């Protein structure tokens, strides 16, 4: 059973260090575009300013709208110099997406850093580019269970499912904000007043409810651990073992009338017309045996032969 190790002890550590010491507190918020990474970091930054801290919040714009990864560094303390968190110095890492959390783990303070991860997986199409038969997804393979066991002070929650249960599917980021709030020494009311300023007026109540549920969830992490872990394990399936998969493209050139349909529509672009305007396979290694050419050839000039995998068929 994975545990949120030393949770209380660590909480004290952060409480003490924040307002008094010279060293700034570092919170790294990561995810992908559209998840609300910037909202979380803006709320935190505004709160820190209200409490009299110097604060810097740094993010790189541009790619967020286009599905790239998004990250925001929030640093607060008596005086903050560097806009970015030094690698290995993040006190808290909040990840709104699972693979993004893993990407940024090296930024977390070893031993003492706190990791709060959403188990939501947003699989990029890039991870599904391998079209060979039974190819595995390129998404990170590390399960929630493994990570929670290896990283001290870590907790993983399915905030999206929690938000859906609450009837506010878009408030997953506020749930994580609630979880984050338990690790910093600011009054609950102060958090809430800032959140109320940042979310659309009509959604204030729903967001505050989401915030509460995030707080409650972290406090009861052990009790809820089971369900989170189950979700993690379930998400792990789906990778198929890769096997030697030889596809044979049989082209009957006598029947080819150079219509070019197969060449234009081959997803891997591995066919071409030769000098005599007859179709030929130019990139056999790229062929995935998808059969588009076979099905579209008006003259039945192409046959695809793939070995059967009866034992693997779903």
């Amino acid at each position, binding site marked *: 059973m994975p545990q949120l190790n030393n949770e209380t002890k660590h909480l004290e550590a952060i409480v003490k260090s924040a307002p008094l010491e010279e060293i700034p507190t570092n919170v790294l918020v990561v995810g992908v575009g559209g998840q609300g990474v910037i909202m979380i970091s803006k709320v935190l930054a505004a709160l820190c300013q209200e409490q009299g801290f110097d604060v810097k919040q740094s993010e790189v714009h541009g790619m967020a709208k286009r599905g790239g990864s998004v990250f925001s560094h929030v640093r607060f303390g008596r005086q903050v110099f*560097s806009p970015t968190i030094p690698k290995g110095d993040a006190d808290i890492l909040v990840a709104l997406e699972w693979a993004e959390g893993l990407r940024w783990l090296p930024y977390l303070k070893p031993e003492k850093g706190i990791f709060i991860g959403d188990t939501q997986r947003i699989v990029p199409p890039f991870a599904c580019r391998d079209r060979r*038969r039974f190819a595995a997804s390129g998404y990170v393979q590390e399960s929630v269970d493994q990570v929670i066991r290896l990283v001290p002070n870590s907790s993983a929650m399915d905030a999206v499912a929690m938000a859906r249960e609450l009837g506010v599917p878009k408030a997953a980021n506020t749930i994580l904000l609630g979880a984050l709030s338990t690790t910093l020494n600011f009054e609950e009311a102060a958090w809430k007043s800032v959140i109320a300023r940042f979310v659309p007026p009509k959604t204030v109540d729903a967001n505050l409810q989401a915030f509460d549920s995030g707080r409650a969830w972290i406090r009861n992490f052990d009790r809820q651990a089971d369900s989170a872990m189950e979700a993690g394990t379930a998400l792990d399936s789906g990778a198929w073992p890769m096997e030697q998969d030889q596809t044979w493209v049989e082209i009957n050139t006598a029947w080819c009338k150079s219509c070019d349909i197969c060449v234009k529509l081959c997803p891997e672009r591995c066919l071409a017309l030769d000098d005599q305007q007859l179709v030929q396979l130019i990139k056999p290694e790229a062929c995935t045996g998808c059969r588009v050419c076979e099905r579209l050839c008006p003259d039945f000039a192409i046959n695809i032969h*793939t070995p059967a995998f009866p034992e693997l068929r779903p």
Partner: protein
Amino acid sequence: MGKQMTETIETAAVKSPQTLEKLEKAQAKPMMGNEAIARGAWEAGAKVASAYPGTPSTEILESLATYPAEDIEAQWATNEKVAYDVATGASLSGVRAFAAMKHVGLNVAADALMSQTYIGVNAGLVIAVCDDPGIHSSQNEQDTRLLAQLAMAPVLEPSDAQEALDFTRLAFEVSEEFDTPVILRSNTRLSHTRSLVNVGERLQKKPNNFIDDRKKSVMIPLHARMRHPILLEREKSLTKYFNQSDLTRWEKGSTEIGIITVGISYSYVKEVLPSASVLKLASSYPLAEERVREFCQSVDRVIVVEELEPVVENSVRLLGLEVEGKSFFPRVGEFSPELVRECFEKAGVLEANRQPPVLEVPPMPRPPLLCSGCPHSSSYMALRAINARVAGDIGCYTLSVMEPLHALDTTVAMGSSIGNAVGMAKGGNEERPIVATIGDSTFLHAGIPPLIDAVYNQANITVMLLDNHTTAMTGGQDHAGTGKTLRGESVERVDFEQLVRSIGVKWVRKTDSYNLGQVYQILREAIKFKGVSVIISDRPCVLDPMKIKGTPYQAVLESCTGCQSCMNLGCPAINWSDEMYDGHHKVTIDQAQCMGCSLCAQVCSEDAIHLVTN
């Protein structure tokens, strides 16, 4: 050395007291570097501001446009040179003027800048230039300071948002005092970091009269020869100014090690080596020579810490002083506190003191993609299918170089595509059809002269003008082809078809980017035409000016054969489902992301993609 510095130093480094005092005040505002620069220009009383959008500088003008229109004319220019010329004209006419651009934008404006520095200013003239070390969103990471040296224009380099505001305001004073345009150099990190800023009031300034001095403002050889020595004098006066100004800040600390630094690098130095003596320069050019000399004499060892090129380091060496710098610090990429620490370790200033991370997982690639429903996808699908040699340009469509579209062969600079294509055609070495692809905003920026060249020199090329009615890559800014200004007023829209015809292009067709069959067909006809053919592929961007969301499509799993042809569009809404067919994943369409462009349904050979019906 080698021992840890922190223990041997008696006095803590001087904190920047201004910052702390200012934080006491309640009105400190969290501002992005770019917003602070805009605020600085507004407070300085700038009357005219012009820019062409470019990451990371775009938000400067967008932010200026939020100030009252009666205070400041804030406008998008066709390109950076136009922006700079507009600002110059305003300055010469007697009002304070401002231009903003990214580092590569300054190349476009450089032609004007190099001679404008000979002329000088009437009222203050400031150019904000944002570098992109680390190449987050650019085609190179050139160092603006080298161009500034060449133009002999002083550069001010803020290290945080407060300084961004203060330095911008001050830059106008420096400009007027020394009769020179001033470059305010930011970078991606500073421009996009929010920190607390104390703001001031707008300076109410009466315009100056136009100065009737043609020897100063008309650069014919006779006049220019007279002006050049004046520039050298100006350089000397500016050196004196930076020697005396408290902009050049000496923070006394250890005498064993002294750091000379400038701009954002200062914040990393203070983070990593808080107790060293630091000479914080406000300007890399001209250098505060006397202060640097004094500083170097006061410490045993001097290291210069600056991002990108060794501009300060080389200048200090020219003074005959011994300094180190780029022997430890890289000339490429962006600095970070951990990198600066590593370099100090290499230099023997700090001892290695790092614990291994708890868990290191090889990062999964998550590259940016063309959006779901992006009208560019169909054009590149078709280009790939006709096996074209594609000269690309700068814009979102550069992303089509990635799998699966994989359809770009070159990308050099704004507007290069058409000229590159002409060269490829004239080389006579290319058997594949040669196509230049260029977006609407880029075409207006720098694509018209090369198209004229193509027609004039009778090149056999096809130009695909990808008209998505916005400047998409930088977040959807208006331009002369959208019919809206920066402040949202409606104006005449450039008619691309008429424009292209007036140049002398005989073969022009317009097509709907969402009609894949038509795009293919027109492209095939275009490449058969001998001479310059132009296709205008027309569809608004799905994100800007408004997010387009129609009825989504769904994949019918019973019919899907897992050929994944639809995934060749590179649409982020289409992905593997858990169901398989003959060892291949069938596809699924994320209805939240799908905006209903129908391209995937057009591609599907099994008719397995249908509109969602309730």
